[in-house]
């Protein structure tokens, strides 16, 4: 009964989202009191982490607020993201040419948020490929990503009513090693000549190796990563690129789920707050430098 939000599936499925925070709060209180009791009542706050934690609470508060607002109804405007609009085009092109789609969810493990974002998008892409009857190949670098990707793709094929076309051997573990993986993927690209290549996740130096090989065979390429150092390579070699946060917004954009779109709005509000704070801090610093304002106002005093 303690964890009733989770262990009663029908209730969980029909539970109102407004009730979930209450359940979470109960769990949080239990955890705190449990650890307090276990540690003999000794808890101290890490004061150096408090500013970061406060900012995190504010940011999460914005997101949760707009999620609850989105639940109440009303259409939320999200600007067009050309890279995501072109996924249909890419899969359609591959189907017409009778060639495969290649999907690479990055080179990091399942504990990396970009890999999770890539796997979330893989679900939508694999649903499309199952409907279009287009072969989907997913080479991965980590074993846990392999099992998760197999599950995601299988669920998508089941959901769309095409379980017979699912082929587990298309989702293949190559190697953990970065450049060996790049060599393996390049080999797949050159041999199999996929018509569409989607690279969505964490990439490092192998990004240009894979993107340039894909460009050479004439595939349509859609890439996305939050690694700033790899974005220029993707922009130069790929047709469409998801830059930074667009990768994390992709699952919301593709599903058009109101709650997920609400989280995007909350994220944007938090960004506006950061921009205002940057402008205020810059004006204060300029004032201290050039107008003789007291240096006690400096933002660096609080950091």
């Amino acid at each position, binding site marked *: 009964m303690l964890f009733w939000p989770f262990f009663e599936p029908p209730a969980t499925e029909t539970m109102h989202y407004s009730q979930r925070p209450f359940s979470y709060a109960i769990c949080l209180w239990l955890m705190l009191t449990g650890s307090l009791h276990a540690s003999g009542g000794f808890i101290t706050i890490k004061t150096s982490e408090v500013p970061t934690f406060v900012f995190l609470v504010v940011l999460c508060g914005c997101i949760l607020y707009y999620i609850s607002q989105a639940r109440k109804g009303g259409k939320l405007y999200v600007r067009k993201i050309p890279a995501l609009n072109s996924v249909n085009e890419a899969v359609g092109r591959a189907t017409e040419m009778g060639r495969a789609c290649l999907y690479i969810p990055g080179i990091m493990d399942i504990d990396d948020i970009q890999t999770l974002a890539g796997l979330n998008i893989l679900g939508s892409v694999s649903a499309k490929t199952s409907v279009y009857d287009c072969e989907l190949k997913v080479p991965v670098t980590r074993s846990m990503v392999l099992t998760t990707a197999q599950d995601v793709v299988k669920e998508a094929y089941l959901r769309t009513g095409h379980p017979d076309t699912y082929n587990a051997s298309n989702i293949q573990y190559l190697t953990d090693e970065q450049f060996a993986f790049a060599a393996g993927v390049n080999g797949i690209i050159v041999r199999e000549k996929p018509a569409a290549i989607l690279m969505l996740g964490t990439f490092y*130096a192998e990004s240009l190796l894979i993107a340039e090989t894909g460009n050479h065979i004439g595939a349509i390429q859609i890439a996305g990563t939050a690694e*700033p150092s790899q974005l220029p390579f993707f922009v130069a070699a790929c047709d469409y690129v998801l830059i930074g946060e667009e990768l994390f917004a992709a699952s919301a954009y593709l599903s058009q789920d109101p709650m997920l779109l609400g989280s995007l709005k909350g994220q944007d509000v938090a960004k506006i707050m950061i921009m205002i704070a940057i402008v205020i801090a810059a004006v204060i610093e300029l004032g201290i430098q050039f107008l003789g304002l007291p240096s006690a106002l400096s933002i660096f005093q609080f950091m």
Partner: protein
Amino acid sequence: MLDFIENLDRRYVFVLIALSVALPLIFKVTLPMPDDPQVKTLYDYIENLKPGSQIAISFDYDPSSEPELHPMAIALLHHAFRKKHKVLSFALYPAGPSMANDAFAKVVKHFPEVEYGKDYINLGFYYGPNTGLNQVAVFCSDILRAFPKDEKKKVTGTYPIMSGFRSLKDAAVVISLSAGDPGVPAYVSEANAKHGINVAAGVTAVSAPRFYAYYNSGQLMGLLGGLGGAASYESFVKVKGKALAGMGAQSFAHLVIILLIIISNGIYLIRKRSEEPRWS
């Protein structure tokens, strides 16, 4: 001819690049390196430290990044040993300790008075929690707990160099030679942000643009970016290393790429002009 150049097979480009890199290396073309302010701040800091200061170097790279980062390590060790500083090395990458051993081996033969355990030590790879932040947090509190034995599998506390070094807070500067993750961000957010420890970075050229933000905000007190940064440091320290030797090749490769870009844009503009409607 224009068609041929506009649709030039990339293999011709590869041949041009190969020649532009190989010929300067074969004919040993070396060029004077311009001053890099980000490199100079680190050089000046180490130069002005009092002899016997402790410098911690984190070897966070593997052999694939060796051409860019290893010359930095060698130049830094030359500088440190010349100024009689103590060097402690450790690694967040499994291949890091062997990179450190190789760097020490190459430099120590120029300094016969330098002794392992007294002037330098290789603490090895940290077998701890798998996130960079957690690793660096342990280094900042108790480095002997992180490395009870050094890379030679001997008890760390018995070495003379460790008598004045209990955590990264005792280091005058922590230099992370990093090829990716974990690496510099972990040291900046843990060592510098929470404990005020001086952190400098040596990174690959691809990653360097990202760390200018950290340098400009004062979170990094020095930044060596790619082969150029390594060559710059070598020219400050006056060591003729592989970075300076490679800058000639890199210069000509860049020049060839620029010329190719100019040619392709020239052809693009000619094509565009020839397609524009002519009004009488």
